[in-house]
């Protein structure tokens, strides 16, 4: 049989263990010994062993094998064993454990035990961990004890009843009569228990509340006795007589007086008396004053009494004790809606509390400060709040930021101030603002048209300093995209003039695009802004095009799609580009598209899919001809293009003009369908004819279609065309339809050439024709000086 050491020995052994491992070893040995002891028959050391197990449990080790031992011990006739057994039950068992049901019977028996200390154990355990079932079983017992026992038991029975009511609300009716009669007792413990019980009953049942309103005079009497009576050493705490009972009575009075004129009247004088007479130099006095204030503010009290209460809170605010200041602000928060002016008087102190070291105090001060902001104090309050924001703990940042935004929106003295404030918040706490901030701010900016110049300058400067705050960067990018030309203008009446070049702006946007700090959404903003600038700046459009085309192969699908679409805007739809990218109209607040990031890109996206659906998929040449026939098309031949097969958007094939016209009608655009392009013969020799027709794509873009035919009697093979253009013109030759020209002009070869003439120089082309016929190679060159339907001088 293993030896069992006394409790103190074991504790000493555990404490002297130097490592966790050693401690575990000691505990395992002890638990084994304890288990062995439990299995044995009754011995004197049982309570002892259980106590050891409870200690081990408190250190965090498992002790469920002790549960049954607790049950056994509770059933023991010995007080020492009962005591530890009940303690073990409260520590190891909770109502969710099955074993807890087993002690119900023991508790029942012990409730009627002859010895009051045994009764006390049972009452304590029931009140601590009694389940709803146990409560139902034993409620009548408790009621009996409430009526007929000594004070020692009565006070405990009252609190036990409180627990029962919390578990099984319906049983409240059972205890109401007994509770009422307890109010006549003199014993403070019993009175306290009775008041707590009545409070619980009234909180849960409005009927009971009505009944107990009649006790208000009695309660007032008891309070008066406490406040005025002579010194009672038993219950005195620093000069306050039984503060615990006072506080509970005040709380009950609050519930009884709420929304009831008569009851509130009856307690008015008493409250005034307590408020004035209670000594506020010690915490205990302040505890009573605090409860009084809460009661005064919650019932229908006289205005004079209310003022008194708010003044007490004001005094609390100036107290050296941080706890008292915290309490004061919590209470002021509750009444800032109803007694706004009274609280405003203390605004200065509250704002000072923003600088307190303690985070809880700071939080309270922030909430109160935000509630106290009004049209008259907005400027000074905002200064303080912004100061607070720059140094506030991270958990309060987002609350502070959104509070500031709300206040700014409601009371902004001027639009410029409003924008400045929002920018300030974005620079200090940009990471903690809510998502709607960005569209809200954009909407605000578009509505303030006179400040566009100022805003974009400020944002540009902010962007140069720091690109880590995503919200700020997004707004800045959007503004630069929209109002870029204002930035280039240089002067601005509200901000200092600064020289900004187009390259500077594009540098800034590129930095955002390339930075690893930028989120995908931010990069999308930057890309769209870059694109928009292509219609607002003059010199660096190429740079924009190259930026945009780079992102055509970006891994981010969203960016890639946008880039590809913007590319298409440059190439095929250049004539639409200016219209698509023009200034945004003023946005209505809460318009349907409001929360989506509205940008020119969105508009483009909507148009493009229509195109894609209408565009014919790539076909080999003959099938294309067939298709043309179906459409009843002109003699223009279809040129399958070498477009990269991007799934999002394949370059639409050059449509015959009539079909193109239909397409444009579908879009509802007013653009006139281009007239059938005139054809000009540029080369005719030895039976080989090359004709040329042009189609203007945009201000500086042109698509030239070269068609070759052979009207000799022999076939021509290896037919190739080469073209050269002046230096500033860009040339892109598409793949020819073939290189075989059958005799007698039975079939033609076509080739498309895309030209871009941004500098609008005189357009010339040198064309070299080479082929082989009947085994001999032929080569010839021709210069084309004019293109039909297109003059170099622009429109």
């Amino acid at each position: 049989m293993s030896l069992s050491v006394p409790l103190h020995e074991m504790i000493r052994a555990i404490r002297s263990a130097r490592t966790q491992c050693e401690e575990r070893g000691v505990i395992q040995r002890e638990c084994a010994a304890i288990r062995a002891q439990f299995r044995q028959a009754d011995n004197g050391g049982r309570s002892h062993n259980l106590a050891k197990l409870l200690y081990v449990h408190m250190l965090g080790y498992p002790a469920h094998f002790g549960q049954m031992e607790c049950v056994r011990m509770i059933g023991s006739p010995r007080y020492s064993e009962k005591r530890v057994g009940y303690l073990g039950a409260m520590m190891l068992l909770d109502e969710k454990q099955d074993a807890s049901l087993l002690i119900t019977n023991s508790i029942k028996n012990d409730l009627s035990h002859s010895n009051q200390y045994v009764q006390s154990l049972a009452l304590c355990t029931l009140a601590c961990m009694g389940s709803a079932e146990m409560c139902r079983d034993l409620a009548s017992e408790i009621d009996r004890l409430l009526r007929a026992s000594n004070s020692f038991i009565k006070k405990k029975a009252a609190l036990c009843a409180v627990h029962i009511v919390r578990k099984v609300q319906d049983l409240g009716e059972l205890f109401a009569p007994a509770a009422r009669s307890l109010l006549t007792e003199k014993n403070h413990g019993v009175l306290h228990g009775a008041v707590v019980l009545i409070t619980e009953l009234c909180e849960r049942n409005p009927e009971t509340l009505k009944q107990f309103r009649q006790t208000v005079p009695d309660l007032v009497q008891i309070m008066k006795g406490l406040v005025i009576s002579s010194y009672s050493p038993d219950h005195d705490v620093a000069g306050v007589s039984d503060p615990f009972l006072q506080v509970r009575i005040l709380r009950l009075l609050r519930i009884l007086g709420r929304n009831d004129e008569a009851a509130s009247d009856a307690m008015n004088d008493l409250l005034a008396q307590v408020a004035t007479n209670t000594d506020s130099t010690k915490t205990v006095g302040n505890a009573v004053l605090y409860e009084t204030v809460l009661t005064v503010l919650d019932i229908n009290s006289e205005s004079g009494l209310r003022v008194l209460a708010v003044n007490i809170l004001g005094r609390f605010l100036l107290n050296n004790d941080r706890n008292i200041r915290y309490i004061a602000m919590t209470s002021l928060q509750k009444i800032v809606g109803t007694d706004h002016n009274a609280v405003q008087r203390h605004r200065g102190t509250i704002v000072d509390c923003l600088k307190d070291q303690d985070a809880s105090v700071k939080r309270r001060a922030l909430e109160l400060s935000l509630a106290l902001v009004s049209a008259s104090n907005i400027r000074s309050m905002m200064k303080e709040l912004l100061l607070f924001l720059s140094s506030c703990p991270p958990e309060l940042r987002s609350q502070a930021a959104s509070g500031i935004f709300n206040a700014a929106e409601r009371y902004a003295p001027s639009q410029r101030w409003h924008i400045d404030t929002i920018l300030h918040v974005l620079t200090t706490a940009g990471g903690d603002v809510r998502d709607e901030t960005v569209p809200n701010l954009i909407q605000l900016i578009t509505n303030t048209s006179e400040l566009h110049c100022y805003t974009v300058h400020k944002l540009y400067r902010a962007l140069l300093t720091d690109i880590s705050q995503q919200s700020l960067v997004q707004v800045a990018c959007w503004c630069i995209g929209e109002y870029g030309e204002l930035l280039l203008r240089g002067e601005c009446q509200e901000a200092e003039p600064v020289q900004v070049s187009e390259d500077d702006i594009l540098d800034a946007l590129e930095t955002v695009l390339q930075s690893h700090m930028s989120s995908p959404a931010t990069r999308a903003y930057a890309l769209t802004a870059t694109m928009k600038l292509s219609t607002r700046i003059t010199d660096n459009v190429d740079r924009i095009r190259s930026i945009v085309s780079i992102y055509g192969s970006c891994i981010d699908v969203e960016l890639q799609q946008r880039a590809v679409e913007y590319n298409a805007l440059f190439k095929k739809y250049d004539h639409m580009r200016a219209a698509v990218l023009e200034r945004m109209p003023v946005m209505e607040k809460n318009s349907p598209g409001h929360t989506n990031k509205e940008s020119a890109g969105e508009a483009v996206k909507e148009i493009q899919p229509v195109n894609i659906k209408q565009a014919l998929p790539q076909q080999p040449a003959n099938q294309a001809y067939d298709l043309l026939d179906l459409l009843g098309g002109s003699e223009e031949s279809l040129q399958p293009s070498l477009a990269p097969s991007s799934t999002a958007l394949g370059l639409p094939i050059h449509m015959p003009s009539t079909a193109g016209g239909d397409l444009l009608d579908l879009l509802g655009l007013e653009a006139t369908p281009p007239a059938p392009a005139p054809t000009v013969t540029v080369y005719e020799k030895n039976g080989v004819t090359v004709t040329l027709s042009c189609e203007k794509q945009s201000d500086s873009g042109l698509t030239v279609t070269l068609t070759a035919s052979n009207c000799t009697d022999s076939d021509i093979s290896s037919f190739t065309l080469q073209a050269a253009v002046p230096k500033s013109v860009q040339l892109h030759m598409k793949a020819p339809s073939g290189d075989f020209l059958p005799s007698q002009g039975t079939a033609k070869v076509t080739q498309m050439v895309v030209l871009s003439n941004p500098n609008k120089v005189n357009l010339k082309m040198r064309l070299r024709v080479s082929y082989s016929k009947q085994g001999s190679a032929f080569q010839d060159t021709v210069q084309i000086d004019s293109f039909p339907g297109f003059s170099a001088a622009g429109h």
Partner: protein
Amino acid sequence: MQFMLLFSRQGKLRLQKWYVPLSDKERKKISRDLVQTILARKPKMCSFLEWRDLKIVYKRYASLYFCCAVEDQDNELITLEIIHRYVELLDKYFGSVCELDIIFNFEKAYFILDEFLLGGEAQETSKKNVLKAIEQADLLQERWPACWHCWSAVVICS
């Protein structure tokens, strides 16, 4: 009150009294997290904090933290007084109480607490009465003493 915890500056629990039904695992988690939070606070800070959805009131006496979780409507200042009263009771009982007393006589600390609070509420507002009751209960216990020095299964002395 929902629960009361006593713990040392190293975070070792010296007493835990739970007045709400929670499983062992949940209790462990709450204790661990709350202890960490309170130990991280600086000395001059407020005695009250909002933690999860509870109101926490705590105070440090020498090397022990006394921490209570109370309901929304409970008066924080009076809770501080309750904590203080409990410390006074321990002090009177043990005679100048220190942490070691509470470690080696933890079951006594519980008995005293159970004589002062019942179901999370104060049951006796007179210090004298609480101490008297404990004294009587202790005497009762001595009538059937557990054998502190028994080393084998031997019946008690009367």
